């Protein structure tokens, strides 16, 4: 099935695409057909900077288990780091 459903959020950071690193401004998360992963459906995450064109994109296609494990890993990594250490608001000069 095509879910059409897309979660879109504004993000701040960098990603490495085919042309090297670029600033990221958006992420999209959707459960739909992958382009490459050998499954009928995957959790697809696109890290984007639309201002730099369609190719400014880092794409991942994860199984449900992998996506949930990633969420947990992100939460755990943030839990064990000092609060605010990676926050944009907490960075000097920002």
């Amino acid at each position: 099935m095509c879910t059409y459903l897309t979660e879109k959020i504004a993000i701040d950071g960098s990603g490495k695409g085919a042309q090297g690193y670029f600033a990221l401004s958006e992420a999209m998360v959707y459960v739909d057909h992958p382009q490459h992963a050998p499954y009928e459906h995957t959790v697809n995450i696109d890290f984007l900077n639309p201002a730099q064109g369609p190719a400014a994109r880092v794409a991942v296609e994860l199984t449900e288990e992998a996506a949930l494990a990633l969420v947990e890993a992100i939460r755990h990594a943030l839990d064990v780091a000092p609060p605010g250490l990676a926050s944009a608001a907490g960075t000097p000069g920002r």
Partner: protein
Amino acid sequence: MYDALLAETITLTGHDGDAIEAYTARPLTPGPTGGVVVIHHMPGYDRATKEITRRFAAEGYAAVCPNLYSREAPGADPDDAAAAARARGGVPDARLVGDVAGAARYLRGLSSANGRVGTIGYCSGGRQSFLAACSLDLQAAVDCYGAFVAGRPPHDFPVPAEPLLHLTENLSCPLLGLFGAEDQHPSPAETAELEEALTAHRKTYEFHTYDGAGHAFFAVDRPSYRPQTAVEGWGRVLDFFGRHLAG
């Protein structure tokens, strides 16, 4: 038997007079030949869809596949273009109709054309094939597992996919529907709902729902591919176009 084909990327005039990219494949015979507009799936104007376009040419039709994401992502890789189009909310219905109209105009303008043009679309393109056939003067339309012709997506879907059942009375041509019994979008209940609407409006249609197949059973490069179903489905499509477009 002379069986040479020409396949190439062209520019055609789509919705609002916009120049859009398209991929065409056509027999190098004088004709007369029917035309087929191939409407690509949501993952984009990709290699597999271009291969489908060439298949129609090999079967004796002038075929063209407009790049529905030309405006969002000219020249981009198909997957990047699909992501860019998704990020902007997908392809608006009015624009789709305008682009298919442009593709049909291109086909009818070929010196080999017999004037008859049909559409075929896959996945989101299945819904768009039905939409085009309810909006334009066409001679045949094929809907391959298009979701949201009947049935409404959840209210928070950002990609516009309004149900199209209310347009059924405007359907301009015979419709062939090919569906997987295990598909949820469209579900067998939803295709039955469409069938009811077609019957109520006395439209010519034929539906085939295949056991053991879900969504995207024609997609040779995906795990959803079902070889037997795809072979039978291709047979249905060629028989249908043979009756309504050929000659």
